[in-house]
């Protein structure tokens, strides 16, 4: 039987934290009109450099900063390639994902003489917040980010500019908004969040780095962005939903529900399946930012 208890809720929150952080990064990036399938690579880079910062200094907070910076650097490269070099957004994302896998495994072997994993490092301490109990600070950041991003995008001039650039860059340009600059900022900020989601994997969950440890979570986060219709609350909600199923499949391993064993693989497939269904359902409706993937307005500035 499935028991819905505090522990299931807690493990949902734990598993959803990296998804929420990366999905919020994805929302920022894609709302500005830049397709981001590089979340997976940003996450992996964040996880590796987060570990490395903590390994070098013994201080997990330094690790967190380094991991976030690595994600941000990936964002910077993505913005440069797509906005300045006019590379197709998807091609750039594919290349960055492959680059992240190559770079982190290369450095892992080079620095620690061994593939597979890093030595254990100091992880982030838990914070006790009233009402939430003992939580990782990054979980708290993810929840705070979820609540703050909606007013940011819809109630501040910066948020309005970001969305304008993603919906109609030509009009934004005519209104005096520097389209390229806004997109650079949005993609770098998205990269920082993607990097932090990776830091959570290496310094929040395992206290080490394992080869390829993002394991497709960046794509689940992308799925959450789509499933949540490119809104912060929707994306975070979808991330929580996917995290819940992950927690549930861990709980159910080897157990029977009504006399049947549900293979964990089928529950792990769920985010991917649901995303295809959602995309098929959205077809023809205007849910994505209208100028997603369109760079014509940044050709001149």
């Amino acid at each position: 039987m499935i028991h819905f208890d505090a522990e299931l809720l807690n493990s949902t929150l734990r598993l959803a934290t990296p998804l929420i952080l990366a999905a919020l990064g994805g929302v920022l990036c894609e709302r500005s009109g830049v397709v981001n399938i590089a979340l997976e690579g940003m996450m992996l880079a964040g996880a590796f450099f987060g570990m490395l910062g903590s390994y070098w200094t013994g201080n997990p907070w330094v690790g967190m900063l380094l991991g976030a910076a690595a994600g941000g650097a990936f964002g910077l490269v993505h913005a440069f390639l797509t906005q300045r070099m006019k590379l197709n957004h998807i091609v750039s994302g594919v290349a960055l994902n492959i680059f992240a896998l190559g770079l982190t495994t290369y450095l892992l072997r080079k620095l620690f003489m061994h593939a597979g994993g890093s030595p254990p490092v100091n992880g982030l301490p838990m914070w006790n917040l009233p009402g939430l109990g003992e939580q990782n600070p990054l979980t708290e950041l993810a929840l705070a980010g979820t609540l703050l991003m909606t007013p940011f995008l819809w109630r501040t001039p910066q948020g309005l500019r970001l969305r304008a650039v993603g919906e109609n860059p030509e009009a934004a340009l005519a209104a005096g908004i520097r389209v390229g600059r806004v997109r650079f900022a949005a993609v770098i900020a998205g990269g920082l969040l993607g990097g932090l989601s990776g830091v959570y994997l290496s310094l929040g969950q395992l206290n080490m780095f394992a080869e390829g440890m993002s394991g497709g979570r960046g794509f689940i986060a992308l799925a959450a962005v789509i499933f949540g219709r490119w809104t912060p609350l929707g994306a975070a909600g979808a991330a929580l939903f996917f995290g819940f199923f992950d927690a549930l499949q861990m709980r159910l391993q080897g157990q029977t529900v009504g006399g049947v064993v549900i293979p964990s693989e089928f529950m792990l497939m769920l985010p991917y399946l649901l995303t295809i269904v959602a995309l098929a359902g959205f077809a023809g409706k205007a849910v994505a930012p209208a100028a997603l993937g369109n760079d014509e307005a940044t050709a001149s500035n």
Partner: protein
Amino acid sequence: MRRIISGPAFALLAAFGLGAMAIWVSGGNPITSFGAMFAGAFGSGPTVAETLVKSVPLIITGLAVALGLRAGLFNIGVEGQLLVGGLCAAYVGYAVKLPAVVHLPLCIVCGMIGGAAWGLLPGFLRAKRGVHEVITTIMMNYIAFYLTHYLVTNPLKDATTMAPQTPEALSSAWLPAFGGLHAGILLALICLAGYAFVMGRGVFGYEVKVVGKAPDAARAAGISVTGTLVRAMLISGALAGLAGAVEVLGVHHKFYDQFSPGYGFDSIAVAFLGGGSALGTGLSALLFGALRNGAVGMQLATDTPREIVTIIQAIIIVMAGTKFVKNSSGSGGGADDPL
């Protein structure tokens, strides 16, 4: 100047230059590293044979990606299609008893059908509903990972071992082997010739090119855009499935979990560097086969990790990618969902 910069030679030069810099910055010697890599790929008869064997799936999957790109489709789902095709071939290989003349072709055809089936849904959604194939094929990859993992750890598992793999295929389903090579190389050459013929002279190849370059013109000329897109995706998937079947029937003789070292992802770089032609794809598949094979020897002989190849690959995709895929939403085949 622009022509040179977007050409494959410049992409290679830039990628190897940056790769050499990465080796040097991380405290290695690029010259001895690349030398050891070359020796690892071409140093002796057996290593050359191994390089060719490693190139076979890259030729076939490279063509799969290239065909998609010509039609304006970016099939990132080759890895998943390859896994499903490989599993279908392995299953028919051990579960069905037939004489070799029938058994081997049947296994190959089943592998191709499996791969094509895995490409059908993304192709259909793109053609009929305008859903961008990139996202759906990425999702289909992960579904394939989990599905094949489930099948080889549960219903199709070899009961005599702990390993997550199918029973060994009957020898009537094996691709004939000779001198460190297997007959998959002939299949790869047939694919190259077939691709060159269809793209150069075939009606289908013409339709693919028109749909990829100018879908509105294709529609005006009476070419069925949806039909062409679905067919291109099916053939791309069938090629990916063929590559999986060839690996299973020629090298491993069974399907084991995670048998592909990422051929489906290597194939993207192969296709980009190859520029969409049969000759280019063949040559760049050979290059990547040599890199992947040589990197193993390089890692043993020097302290440069073999992942330098993956880094080089990413740079090649960036350098060669500008030429291929246009940078505005809706280009090629009219996907109206601009993901």
